[in-house]
């Protein structure tokens, strides 16, 4: 099991942030094309956190979260998670469906829109990461999960048998003309994959 602490030097962290912003840019372009309106995205922050702290990062183990989950296949398998608060998910669905945000639970339409946006984002992120690291990464079809953050994390740790201890968290902000939505993008590589990705990033730093 991977128990050692993940530390990045300043250069690696900068590169990771750079990669994350390119990912976000590509994702925003795809979303803008889909919706025929301008959507901007940026990644203000990048962190490595232990998976057990994922609930804390999104507000606590019993916080309601809306999450789109993908399994990642390829040379560095793992899991991709997109997390939104209930209200941000609602706003995002409103932007995607071209309606003003309403209160209450997410409708089937909302969920489907969020899943679709999630797929586009995951594909854009993984494609960019693949291009930088030269490691093939392919997302599965998405699953949507609306429940407590803690239940989501134990679902990942147990039912998807993730052997990883750490998650790479990219805070992502989507902005259209008048609204902004805060999302959390998590990449949870399996233990071997983590080292593979870090090594590839390191080589990319030294090579440039």
């Amino acid at each position: 099991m991977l128990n050692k602490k993940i530390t990045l030097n300043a250069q690696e962290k900068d590169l990771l942030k750079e990669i994350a912003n390119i990912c976000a840019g590509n994702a925003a372009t795809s979303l803008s094309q889909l919706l025929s309106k301008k959507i901007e995205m940026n990644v203000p922050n990048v962190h490595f956190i232990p998976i057990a702290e994922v609930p804390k990062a999104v507000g606590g183990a019993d916080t309601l979260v809306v999450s789109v989950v993908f399994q990642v296949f390829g040379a560095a398998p793992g899991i991709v998670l997109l997390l939104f608060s209930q209200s941000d998910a609602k706003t995002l669905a409103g932007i995607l469906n071209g309606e003003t945000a309403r209160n209450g639970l997410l409708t089937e339409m909302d969920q489907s829109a969020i899943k679709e946006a999630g797929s586009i984002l995951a594909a854009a992120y993984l494609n960019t990461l693949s291009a930088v690291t030269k490691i093939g990464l392919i997302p599965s079809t998405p699953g949507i999960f609306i429940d407590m953050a803690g239940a989501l994390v134990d679902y990942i740790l147990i039912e998807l048998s993730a052997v990883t201890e750490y998650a790479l968290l990219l805070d992502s902000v989507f902005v259209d003309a008048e609204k902004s939505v805060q999302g959390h993008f998590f990449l949870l590589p399996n233990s071997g994959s983590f080292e593979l990705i870090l090594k590839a990033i390191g080589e990319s730093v030294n090579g440039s």
Partner: protein
Amino acid sequence: MDLNEYNPPKEIHVGMADMKVAQAPIVLTSLGLGSCVGIVLYYAKTQIGGLAHIMLPDVDLVKNRTNRAKFANTAIPDLLEKLEKMGAERRFIKAKIMGGAHMFGFAKTNKVFNVGIRNIEKVKDILKDLRIRLVAEDVGGSYGRSLYFYLSTGEVRVRTINHGERII
């Protein structure tokens, strides 16, 4: 005692793959359980009890065995031992179990691989082996639960997002 001053009972949080024992008026809590199972053991006479938050059924099926609180078949005997050391008599200890949901799976293909159900079954087997009476349960489904175990009464409040709240 100043009656104007209300002090809510202190809560102690029990994280994933962890266990705690305490005495009234403490409230033991465990938040956001999915397939994990929360097991509470309660000894009413001295109002002591424990809460274990297990993740997997069987320690013998994995390689990494460092955390005994992670598995049903190590956590429950350990929890019982702790209570017995505090003076609890086994024949009066009562158990309640919560959690063990089957959170949705990808393409619903892994029905055989349903950890929630396997956790529940294993927990029940172990309680039986240890001759501890299971008095209540709130298990299964496909949603998360938060638990609040009141050591002053032995009751457990189960909170969910869209599936109501109950006391068992």
